[in-house]
């Protein structure tokens, strides 16, 4: 076997082309359930440790074993952390998706795949690649390299560990620091030396084989960068960040039901709580129950919120649908609860493992009648953590449900983040009357009286030792004292007060983040995880002569600053990851006077928004 056998030089010979350093994407195609996520995370972490701006997106199927799965890693010397659809380097390890993966390699790109077994008549992989003379191809004798591992891995783990072969190949071909690969494996296997040695052993075998047998001919290279990240940078996923935030927000009760992609919020809550929320004698300062369904999950947190506990659940679209009735009860009986919605694709079951922002409108108005909910819109890990604790403050201050609208991309993919800031304010427990307070006011109170004219009334908690403390919480019509009432005046006054409460919240929830540039003629309004792509879009637009300002919404009901901002432009683009342009619709309803200025840039295809698509769409609307 000669070196020449092992790769084909593409027709448009590019040996002398300049190197492309830290500015391309990898796509790794494997089979779900084969443990490839360990390999993918190892590459991602090593690149991160080399100081290269990265992002990783796991495009996985709703399946435990066997279906195709892809992991995208982008390296960006310019620091763009948004998703890119095109991948110049494709590691194709899955025969089921191989034809599609081969076809996806752009001209001049790189394809890496397992070598056909020379002793077998079935030359199944190579035949598929014959038409691609415009790309660089490297083939890896995967089985042979796994066979060199000493001691030999157990049969059961061979398929898993085989993924380490491409780690070694990618490390060699694209210049990834092997020390960082080893460090990443050490982290993953939590210091378990036997596992580290076995996996790193195979990485090294593959690396050395490539060194001896492959000639590096493609232009793509990684190179360590300095001072990219601050000293506090780390990798985390949004569900873990949310859970950690909730633990530091004093979460007292959680009820949940498993659903992709939110389950890890509850699982991380369990893990962090077990670590940080036990007394010295081992007692828990919280309780977490797995409910029988989402109706029970939200029912439990409504009961706990009513009793005075900081209560939360985490779910996704189908769960939100099931929670609709209770959301209305919590709104109308004015019970503080926190609901994390890790959005996935809808309608219906949709695509459980793909991301979207499709629940914005539904969550904001969830339940029948004139109902409206506070929604917080985290865009990065720090905000997942911050809203993790702050959502409880808002829920208790406004005595109402708070929905935190994260998404699968934020929740389940590793993101670069700065280490989190400890909560800067004390817990805001809202307007609660104690027995002593009731004594002071001689028991003269009514559960829904708007004493402070901000729409938020005073509540008492069950167990308050005062003969006037009790009230009858209900989803039925009630007057200011909480008594059942069918009186039209009572009903209208109650809805007006609830409206007043939402208007109070509108201005007290986090204000939007605004970034303005000289000579801007338009602006982009967006929210949540889109920010990663939109930052890049702003540069792309500027390069085409379109200067755009930027506003990111933090919460619903939308702050009046959002309307003021939009008012000052001829038109703005509302960028979001759903089909209908749901946020644009909400803004048009809340601020009809600016509706004509809003242009929708909305897309829902299961992938995080990418900057190129946003930019192209806006440029075409700009007539460029």
């Amino acid at each position, binding site marked *: 076997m000669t070196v020449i056998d092992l790769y084909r030089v593409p027709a448009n010979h590019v040996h002398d082309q300049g190197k492309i350093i830290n500015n391309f994407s990898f796509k790794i195609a494997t089979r779900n359930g084969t443990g490839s996520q360990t390999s993918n995370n190892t590459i991602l972490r090593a690149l991160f440790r080399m100081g290269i701006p990265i992002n990783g997106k796991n495009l996985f199927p709703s399946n435990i074993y066997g279906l195709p799965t892809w992991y995208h890693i982008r390296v960006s010397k310019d620091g763009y952390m948004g998703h890119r659809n095109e991948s110049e380097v494709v590691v194709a390890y899955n025969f089921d998706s191989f034809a599609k993966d081969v076809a996806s390699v752009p001209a001049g790109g790189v394809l890496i795949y397992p070598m056909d077994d020379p002793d077998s008549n079935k030359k199944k992989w190579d035949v598929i690649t014959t038409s691609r003379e415009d790309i660089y191809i490297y083939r890896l004798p995967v089985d042979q390299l796994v066979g060199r591992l000493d001691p030999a891995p157990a049969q059961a783990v061979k398929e898993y560990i085989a993924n380490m072969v491409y780690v070694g190949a990618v490390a060699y071909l694209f210049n990834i620091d092997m020390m960082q690969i080893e460090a990443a494996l050490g982290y993953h296997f939590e210091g378990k030396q036997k596992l580290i040695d076995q996996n790193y052993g195979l990485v090294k075998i593959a690396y050395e084989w490539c060194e001896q047998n492959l000639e590096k001919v493609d232009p793509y290279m990684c190179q360590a960068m300095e001072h990219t990240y601050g000293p506090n940078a780390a990798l985390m996923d949004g569900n873990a960040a949310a859970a950690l935030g909730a633990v*530091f927000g004093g979460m007292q009760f959680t009820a949940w039901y498993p659903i992709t992609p939110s389950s890890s919020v509850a699982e991380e809550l369990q893990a962090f709580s077990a670590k940080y929320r036990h007394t010295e004698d081992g007692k*828990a*300062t919280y309780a977490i129950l797995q409910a029988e369904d989402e109706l029970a*999950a939200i*029912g*439990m947190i409504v*009961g706990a919120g009513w009793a005075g506990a900081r209560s939360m659940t985490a779910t996704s679209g189908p769960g939100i649908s099931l929670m609709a009735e209770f959301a209305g*009860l919590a709104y109308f009986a004015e019970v503080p609860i926190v609901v994390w919605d890790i959005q996935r694709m809808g309608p219906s079951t949709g695509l459980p493992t793909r991301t979207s922002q499709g629940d914005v409108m539904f969550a904001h108005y969830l339940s029948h009648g004139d109902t409206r909910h506070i929604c917080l819109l985290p865009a990065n890990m720090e905000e997942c953590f911050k809203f993790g604790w702050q959502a409880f403050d808002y829920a208790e201050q406004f005595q109402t449900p708070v929905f935190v609208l994260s998404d699968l991309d934020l929740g389940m993919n590793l993101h670069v983040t700065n280490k989190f800031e400890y909560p800067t304010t004390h817990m805001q427990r809202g307007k609660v009357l104690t027995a002593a307070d009731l004594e002071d006011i001689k028991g003269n109170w009514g559960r829904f009286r708007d004493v402070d004219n901000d729409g938020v009334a005073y509540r008492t908690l069950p167990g308050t030792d005062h003969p006037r*403390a009790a009230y009858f*919480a209900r989803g039925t019509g009630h007057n200011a004292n909480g008594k059942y009432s069918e009186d039209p005046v009572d009903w209208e006054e109650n809805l007006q007060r609830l409206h007043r409460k939402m208007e109070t919240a509108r201005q007290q929830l986090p204000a939007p983040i605004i970034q303005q540039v000289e000579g801007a003629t338009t602006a982009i309004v967006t929210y949540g995880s889109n920010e990663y792509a939109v930052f890049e879009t702003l540069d792309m637009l500027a390069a085409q002569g379109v200067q755009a300002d930027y506003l990111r919404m933090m919460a619903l009901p939308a702050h009046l600053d959002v309307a003021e901002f939009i008012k000052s432009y001829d038109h703005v683009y509302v960028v979001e990851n759903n089909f209908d342009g749901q946020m644009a619709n909400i803004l048009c309803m809340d601020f009809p006077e600016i509706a004509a200025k809003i242009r929708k840039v909305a897309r829902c295809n299961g992938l995080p928004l990418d900057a190129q698509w946003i930019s192209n769409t806006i440029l075409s609307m700009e007539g460029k």
Partner: protein
Amino acid sequence: MGRTKTNAIGLERGDYSYNDSTLCPGCGHNSISNQIMAVAFEESLDQHHIIKMSGIGCSSKSPAYFLGRSHAFNSVHGRMPSVTTGAVMANHTLHALAVSGDGDTGNIGFGQFKHLMRRNLPMVYIVENNGVYGLTKGQFSATADKGQKTKYAGHNPFSPIDLCLEALIGGATFIARSFSGDAKQVRTLLKLAMSHRGTALIDIISPCVTFNDRDDSTKSYHWGKTHRDILNEIGFVQTFDEIAVEYDEGEVQPVQMHDGTWITLKKLTADHDPTNKESAFRVLNEAHSTQQIVTGLIYINTDQPTVVDIENMTDEPLVHLPESRLRPSQAMLEDAMSSLFAAN
């Protein structure tokens, strides 16, 4: 005017009342509300630590007719168990007294009912069982008899669910049945249920005088009076000393409640041991097929841990914990951060 009688905590009977009932005159539910007030007064219960929980329906409205000094939550249809679970987990010193109906429990809320039994949440769960939906005008519920006829809903072609049997299969630790016309037994079972640690189900046949009180209905006053098997007579013994409990073996059975008190169960019609699951199953199954109403304590298990025990929470209820015990320290955040994969 004579002096009004007060109880051990200085309250009058009237202090345990609330709004006037808006249910139909003669409704069995009203008599159950009366027994709840009577027991609460007699036992000098502290209303501030009782929560009245309900779902939707005639029965679920009834917490508005008793114990006005207790917090109440009239929630959504069939979901009272989940709301109660959250409230009790948040504050396990609260005594949950829940009222549901046969539709609220046996139809729309059947899933939550079964899962509640599985968790053994400490609470009293009263089902006011009349076989029909009253507030929507007389449709059959899941406990209506097969072949039953009513003026409004016509003929019921489906077999009934027996809530006590379902609770038994679901792992319930306290199952009793009564008849709203038997005030004394209702009171006794209420007292007993309140001293049980775990979910205490009392299925009370409570006739709907408007939609389901024909003599041939098993949920009618007539049927309750003529087809009742009273299983046992319950006595309360004011002692913690087992030796002091006098009983004739085979006829009177002593059972120790979680708080240490002893009760005596005098067997009446059937040879039934309420601490034996098979015996409870047999008694319920026979009664179900013969359309007899067996009343009294059907099953009790005082050994099963509750969800509150299992979750190993602080003795102090969660809602009383101050910020200093709920928010971990800055050092703990740093510890959590140090476990991440860091850039340097």
